[in-house]
């Protein structure tokens, strides 16, 4: 019964959306706020990558909410999985390639991750993408050497302070009499590494936060001890 209702619902939804497809002219969006943001963002925010100025400037609180969601998900997953801190040695050691490759690739991943974060306001990429790569960099040794464990205490400190500094940067603007999360500092020349005011700082905070959350999530999932 439930399956039938569900199917009917999904089918009906699809039919309805297909029927109205002719009413939407995709490909020529109205861009009521998009256009204004494009023309104003170089002066107001100063990031060459306009998506970055939207993510961290115009819609900064969305990004804060998103960090909070990741934090909530990681905390909840920690509640679900991470109550014991014993690692059994049952896991096989990673193979030769994994072991040495992991050690070899670690600095590269780290560099790439930070590079992407630092250039988030200039080129595609930024805190999220760089953060994911950082998480991968720290997770890889874990796969290669099952005995090795991420230092959860250090991770949670990074996690806490990266998240807190995002909010504190926002609050600093508030203390200066501006609005919460208003971009500050001088904006310098468009397109250079030191530009766009506080945006790169925010992206570093985002990158570290995302990296730390994901690394702790992954390490929680990877520990293979049984519940007993």
């Amino acid at each position, binding site marked *: 019964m439930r399956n039938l209702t569900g199917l009917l619902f999904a089918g009906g939804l699809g039919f309805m959306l297909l029927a109205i497809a002719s009413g939407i002219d995709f490909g020529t969006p109205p861009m009521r706020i998009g256009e204004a943001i494009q023309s104003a963002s170089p002066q107001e925010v100063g990031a060459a*990558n306009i998506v970055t100025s939207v993510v961290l400037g115009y819609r900064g609180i969305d990004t804060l909410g998103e960090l909070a969601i990741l934090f909530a998900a990681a905390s909840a997953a920690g509640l679900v999985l991470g109550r014991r801190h014993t690692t059994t040695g049952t896991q096989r050691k990673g193979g030769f390639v994994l072991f040495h490759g992991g050690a070899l690739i670690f600095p590269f991943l780290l560099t790439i991750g930070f590079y992407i974060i630092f250039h988030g306001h200039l080129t*595609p*990429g930024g805190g999220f993408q760089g953060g*994911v790569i950082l998480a991968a960099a720290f997770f890889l040794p874990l796969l290669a050497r099952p005995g090795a464990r991420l230092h959860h205490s250090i991770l949670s400190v990074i996690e806490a302070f990266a998240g807190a500094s995002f909010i504190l940067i926002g609050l600093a603007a508030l203390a200066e009499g501006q609005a919460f999360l208003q971009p500050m500092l001088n904006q310098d020349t468009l397109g250079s590494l030191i530009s766009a005011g506080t945006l790169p700082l925010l992206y570093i905070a985002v990158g570290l936060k995302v990296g730390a959350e994901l690394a702790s999530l*992954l390490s929680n*999932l990877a520990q293979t001890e049984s519940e007993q």
Partner: protein
Amino acid sequence: MSEVELWIALILGIMMLSSAVLALVVKNHLAAVAAASVVSLGLALLFALMRAPDVAMTEAAVGAGLSSLILALALRRLGLWQIDSGSENSNLLSASSKGKDDA
């Protein structure tokens, strides 16, 4: 918009839709995860085609990379990590033939 883009989009679209179906009907869970990550990968390419490089990078890193890693790790912990179809695999098709794998 060039003809080439159109063809690429068409091929990617068909590929994604068929892997989406595959991800839900295939018996083996590992294969299903692989099919789902094909969907993400196709999505990342589509995003690149749609002039959304930021989104494409994120989707490639998060959707195709991280998400597949999470699912694969979960499969290992769930004991569903097997290359051959095992007894516990079940999917859309086995919903109708539920009786046989109740053991």
